[in-house]
């Protein structure tokens, strides 16, 4: 992939497992991203971000010293101190609690991705680029759990299979264009589906993608 230096994405990586950290650094550098630094824990990460002011931060949720949610807290802190910085957290959890903590502020430029996604390098770098561009990226498996959840008869039950697929992609943070491409529809059709669905679910139509992500996820979770 050839990207001019001016457009090269600068990112920092926070991951306590050395092998994985170095692997990620290599893969992402090979993919044409500029890895401005790596950190082994949250404190290092915050120092690194302060010094480097990267465009994107890639952080493991669980890091030393407590191995619980340091990465998440650091991500929230980074968003608070440097609001323009995009953040992707790597999680081992399919559970949504952390996701919503992360989304509580502004969903723009936020990614919540299961750790094993790093295996598909092309997809993974794609996700990083999307987040860097201000989109939201929510792991499909997490979204799938919310969409396929059994629920009482309600508006969701009235959606067609096609509409549900669109809904899931919306929840993953995809734009109408991306949804159209993935589902082989015209952008116009996608727009119609989205409009219908929002009307059925009683959601206010949201112009910006990252706003509708939160709206849809919240709806699905409730």
């Amino acid at each position, binding site marked *: 992939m050839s990207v001019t230096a001016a457009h090269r994405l600068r990112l920092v990586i926070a991951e306590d497992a050395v092998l994985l950290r170095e*692997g990620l650094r290599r893969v992402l550098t090979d993919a044409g991203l500029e890895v401005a630094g790596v950190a082994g824990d949250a404190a290092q990460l915050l120092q690194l971000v302060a010094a480097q002011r990267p465009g994107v931060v890639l952080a493991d949720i669980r890091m030393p010293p407590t191995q619980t949610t340091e990465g998440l807290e650091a991500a929230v802190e980074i968003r608070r101190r440097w609001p323009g910085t995009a953040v992707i957290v790597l999680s081992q959890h399919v*559970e949504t609690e952390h996701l919503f903590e992360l989304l509580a502020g502004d969903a723009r430029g936020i990614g919540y991705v299961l750790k*094993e996604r790093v295996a598909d390098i092309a997809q993974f770098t794609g996700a990083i680029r999307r987040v860097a561009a201000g989109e939201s990226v929510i792991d499909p498996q997490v979204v799938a759990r919310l969409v396929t959840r059994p629920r009482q008869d309600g508006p969701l039950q009235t959606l067609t299979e096609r509409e549900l697929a669109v809904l899931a992609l919306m929840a993953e943070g995809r734009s109408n264009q991306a949804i159209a491409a993935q589902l082989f529809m015209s952008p116009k059709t996608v727009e119609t589906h989205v409009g219908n669905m929002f009307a059925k679910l009683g959601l206010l139509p949201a112009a910006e993608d990252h706003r509708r992500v939160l709206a849809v996820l919240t709806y699905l979770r409730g």
Partner: protein
Amino acid sequence: MSRRALAWLIAGAVAATACYFLVARPPGPNAYLIFYLGTPAVAVAFLAAGLAAWLRWPGSRLGLLFSLVGYFTLLPALDYLDNPAGFTIGNAAVSLAGAALAHLGLAWPTGRLRSRFERGVVVAEYASAAGFSLLGMLVWDPAFSGCDASCPANLLLVYGSRPAWDAVNVLNAVVSAVLTVIVVVLIVRHWRSARGWSRQAMVPLVWVAVVIGAESAITNVTGLYRLPPLANLIFNGWAPLVSLLGPVLFVISTVRARTARGALGTAIVDLEPGAPPGRLRDTLARALGDSTLQLAFRDGNGFTDTSGLAVDPAQPDPGRAVVPLTGPQEAVLVYDAGLELEPQLIRLTVAAASMALEHSRLQAEVQAQLELVRASRARIVEAGDAERRRLERDLHDGAQQRLVTLTLALGMARSRVAGVDPELEALIEAAGKEAKEALTELRELARGIHPAVLTETGLAGAIQALVERSPAVVTITEVPRERFPAVIEATAYFVVSEALANVAKHARAGTAQVSIRRLPGRLAVRVSDDGAGGARPERGSGLAGLADRVASAGGVLRVDSPPGAGTRLEADIPCP
């Protein structure tokens, strides 16, 4: 007391009473029966009380004093004898019963006089009773009292003088009245200074002393005059019967001791097990009727009673007595010395107190052991939880992390060979898929061992996760966002987890509700569904295990699952 002594005493009393009826002249047709029967009635009552008192309190002088009053009451009847000696003795002894009565009152309730002064008063009582009678006899010509020649002679008569005799009588009345007042005042003072059991014993005596004292003072005065027949009937016939209150006093004290015995038994039965020593003391004191009762325990070198006062069993305060309790605990009862008269009551109290203390001790021991077992069970569960957390963390930091790294490496390898060696690429892709599967399985395994989301975000996130995973339609009514101690969170979590697993497996339920409410001192977990019901804790080992788990946290699990009407699982978990 020996049977022999008892026989003598009974014989004496019967003989004295019989003698009275032998010597006393039956009343004539116009006389009042009270003058004939009043004396033996009073005497017999005192003699009987004396016997009973001797039996009840063999070591005390009270039996003797009661008997003495009885005999002295009969003695003046000797003047019925048509015999100068009897006539003389009878007249001389006319006031002795009153003196003995005063003696009895001052010696009540122990039988002992309390001070030198009181001994002096008693001596004065006897001396004035005998002395004035004898003095009067020296100058009394029976003719002064309307006796004609039919009266026997006064053997002590030296010189008959009416003015002298009148003077002796007045002096006698004055001295008697003064002595009576002194005795009554002393008795009132005894009552005022007495505490506990003794004070209770003094209460009826004060009433009796005031009544008898008043009667004695009045008849002292009226005795100086020749009374009209009705006044004579009242003052000399009926009034002396107030002496019967003396024996009544004995009856009251007997009833009181008996009541105390019964009350002690009831009190010990009613005393809740494990009551604090202070409560035991209060109960015993109330039942016994001794408000001064102290229950003292060994405390270092000395003893301390239940209200924190130091007690020296070797040297009790004056008027107090000490008895040790039986049993492994070193404890003593300190009580009013007046109770020494009732050794049986003391023995009973000691037995009751010892038993109650022993009961409390055993109770406390069992409680302590139970507490140990409870604590150890809680520790085992906590250790299990900690071990599960450690395992989960090890899996995450170890195998999971390595698998992620492996998948990344495989991804890198795959991108290297992409388009170069399709066969190898397919192979690497398959390996990557396997690694991902392994990762997913490992994640589920780790989650089952211990949900990291519980440690990380508490109940709210963990319950939400459970609900998202449940194949049934589950709504969360309420879950507190605050954090609780790990054991409490884990217990609440496993209750909901197990309940939802049952909903999915057995209940054939459409919907379920979960609520966890923070109540004062506890966490109330409730999971209810609209399924088939019929769940029984003993049937599924899952529910039984869950009940154990909740119990180990000090809580209770209730399962309400009528067939066909859904299942409601409720756990109350203590929570500070």
